């Protein structure tokens, strides 16, 4: 009986392995075909693990970049899928860990009340909005676009004229700087 998990025919598997071998020889047509083909499969794989559609797309991009950088390690005499799926699984786990960390920063930034402390302390503490205003322009704008205006990372990146990866770095650094400003003096 054919397993329900078996999503690829042997033919498709052979085709990808063949494409990958051609990619190692520098064939651009085979590369485009391979990346488009695996992107669709990766989305299906990741949607079962990541809820947010935007995050799925981010992880797909990360996997494609990793495939690009690791393409010299693929051995055409071996199946392609275990090689690809190992990369995909690690990217998904990395995304999950990052998301968990990011979740903590987000809940911190979303809370616009002063941090806990004595009444005397509170008077001197920074509110989130004050701390936000103190951030470098590029980090503040990145946080405002994504968290206040609700733009996707890609939309915000396009508006800023930077890559989505660079924008994510700005957001992450912005969260870190916010945290340092809000809690740093208390620690």
């Amino acid at each position, binding site marked *: 009986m054919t397993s329900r998990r078996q999503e690829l025919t042997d033919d498709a598997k052979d085709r990808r392995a063949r494409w990958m071998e051609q990619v*190692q020889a520098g064939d651009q047509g085979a590369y485009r075909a391979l*990346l488009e083909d695996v992107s669709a499969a990766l989305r299906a794989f990741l949607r079962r693990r990541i809820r947010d559609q935007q995050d799925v797309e981010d992880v797909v991009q990360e996997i494609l970049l990793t495939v690009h950088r690791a393409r*010299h390690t693929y051995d055409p005499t071996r199946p392609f899928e275990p090689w*690809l799926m190992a990369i995909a699984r690690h990217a998904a786990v990395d995304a999950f860990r990052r998301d968990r960390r990011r979740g903590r920063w987000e809940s911190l930034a979303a809370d616009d009340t002063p941090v806990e402390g004595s009444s005397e302390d509170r008077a001197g503490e920074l509110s989130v909005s004050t701390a936000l205003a103190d951030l470098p322009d590029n980090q503040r704008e990145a946080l405002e676009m994504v968290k206040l205006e609700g733009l996707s990372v890609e939309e915000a990146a396009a508006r800023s004229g930077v890559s989505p990866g660079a924008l994510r770095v700005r957001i992450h650094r912005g969260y870190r700087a916010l945290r340092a400003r809000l809690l740093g003096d208390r620690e």
Partner: protein
Amino acid sequence: MTEPETYRPTEALIARLTAEVRPVRRSWSPSARFLGWLALELVVLIAALAGLGFRPGLAHDLGGVLGPEVALLLGLGLVNALLALLAAVPGREPSPALAAASVLGLLGLAVVYAFGPAIAQSGHQLGDGWPCAVRTIAVAALPWLALLVVVRRGATLVPARAGLLAAIAAFFVSAAALRLVCPLDAREHLLVWHMGPVALGLVASLVIGGRWLARWRAG
């Protein structure tokens, strides 16, 4: 109504990667790399043993506990070299349990040293044993660095584990070689000056591996 044209980052990325693709030299298989590393390790061992000389009564001692001890260290070292090289290829990473098993093997040996029969060797002071630590590190250094470089040229998804495996390989083989050289069997000497540098190398490689071997993903 037509849908507004939107920026599609994944498609843009595919276009960029496609334009960038060039022929690449395929990595050697892990078994071919292992044979290359083994050749280097043999050269290092021959040079080390020729330079340091064998302990007196080695043939007799190998018939006792020393024989299995050296065989265990050598076996674990060689197996872990292959595992480190496998860790450089996506989809072929050894399980964490395999690396843990080797570390447990080392701990087991340490327990045997610690609680085994005490061997008193007259005229020996614990502080005199430091050359063994230096020699263990010196004999391990080149094979260890070579393994790290080879793994770095691959694409490991488990950098810390790969670093640990590389250190187990080089330092265990070195520890085996030092047992053939050093005439001292006192437990304190073995624990401090033979096991100590091995443990140090494992920790250092775990940390270095976690950082340096992961850099390929950053581009």
